[in-house]
């Protein structure tokens, strides 16, 4: 017979879903057991990098896997050229970005990004501020992103005045942006310091 779409009954659909879920669980356990074994043997091969990446893309909250990647970096980085270091670390910045798009509020993802930035010989802090701008466009109240932004500004010694202007733009766009108002309360003492003490006057 032609043209008859196989429409599953709800019970059949449930059973298919259950089988699919069981397969996923089996695959997860197999993959993570392999990772534990490699870690135990200190086998930092291509498969270790690939498996941890695959698992983290599905579940970035498994801090142990980010920890293992950092351990592998710590062993690797002293033994390769600066260019290689940059290449490998940038690879993880890309991985972090992919993970962030699905999970912009995961503590372990933002922590890994900070760690990678701390390891780069030539960190691109402008790019990091742009990343923050992007994620604050997606969600202007994402405190992970605001905190990361403050880390970027501080690390790069960027100007408080520029940040003050940034908060003004955010507030103009949305008067209720409490996160921007809060940041403003921290910036004001920095952009308006007390008058010079030498003159004997107070601010």
């Amino acid at each position: 017979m032609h043209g008859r779409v196989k429409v599953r009954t709800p019970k059949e659909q449930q059973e298919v879903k259950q089988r699919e879920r069981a397969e996923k669980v089996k695959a997860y356990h197999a993959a993570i057991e392999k990772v534990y074994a490699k870690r135990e043997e200190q086998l930092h091969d291509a498969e270790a990098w690939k498996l941890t990446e695959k698992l983290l893309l599905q579940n970035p909250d498994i801090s142990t896997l980010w920890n293992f990647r950092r351990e592998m970096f710590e062993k690797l980085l002293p033994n390769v050229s600066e260019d290689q270091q940059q290449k490998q670390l940038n690879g993880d910045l890309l991985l972090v970005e992919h993970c962030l798009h699905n999970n912009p509020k995961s503590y372990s993802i933002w922590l890994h990004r900070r760690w990678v930035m701390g390891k780069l010989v030539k960190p691109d802090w402008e790019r990091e501020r742009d990343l923050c701008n992007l994620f604050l466009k997606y969600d202007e109240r994402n405190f992970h992103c605001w905190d990361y932004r403050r880390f970027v500004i501080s690390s790069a010694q960027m100007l408080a005045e520029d940040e003050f202007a940034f908060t003004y733009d955010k507030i103009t766009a949305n008067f209720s942006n409490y996160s921007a108002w809060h940041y403003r309360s921290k910036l004001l003492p920095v952009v308006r310091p007390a008058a010079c003490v030498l003159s004997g006057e107070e601010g």
Partner: protein
Amino acid sequence: MSGQEYCMTEFLRVSGVYWGLTAMDLMGQLHRMNKEEVLHFVEGCQHPCGGFGPTHQQDPHLLYTLSAIQILTLYDSLDVIDAEQVVKYIVSLQQEDGSFYGDHWGEVDTRFSFCSLACLALMGRLNAINVDKAVEFVLSCMNFDGGFGSVPGSESHAGQVYCCVGALAIAGALYHVDADQLGWWLAERQLPSGGLNGRPEKLPDVCYSWWVLSSLKMIGRIHWIDKEKLEHFIMASQDEETGGFSDRPGDWVDPFHTLFGLGGLSLLGNKQVKPVNPVFCMPQDVLDRIGLKVKLLDSV
């Protein structure tokens, strides 16, 4: 919970066990859980460094160390693990500015200040760390609204407020809190539905019935919340089919929201639930058994 959901939450398992057991104990039903199995599981989570991971073969962290110590305290079984090594682990994570790393990878957050102080208080070893410095760091996270964030400069958030106020309470330093200012900010978390949110403009969530309410209790301002409306919201978030609580009416349930829903009800004076201690989120009778007293601010 599906098998897949269970395995996706493996990274926080020991905390899940703490949420489930504490919820059961608050309902007077702890005896229905398998104590031996739980203790065996928790023992297997301790690493040589003293810290606990969320499950076997996963790395130690302060978050899971606190959950482990809370479970062992519930079961009066601190002796099954190396308690002294736990103290050493926590001490090793305190920084010069008084803050605490979550683990040796260096994340700083006032959640970890709470985890450290609560763990040590439960073990009677608070003096192992520099308490004054710990307080100094927590206070450096106070904001214009009286609230607290995760690190200096971070926005106020009810979860963070609970951790900071709890830490200050344990340290005997609650007098630093601007109780009227913070009490007002916390009271403003209540929405027309009766539910509480975690910060301005956010949706209500049953777990904030805990973070906000216990904070208000610790600073003597719990009467600033409309209790009837909040109780109504929490009750509406209970799923009649499964019995658990969700974040808000109509959503899927989980052990996390179940515990904090019950905790909130307890603080509101609901007689179906045992009295809960607002600092530790554990049954008050457990804290009484170990003789741990933490003074709270008086109501005005």
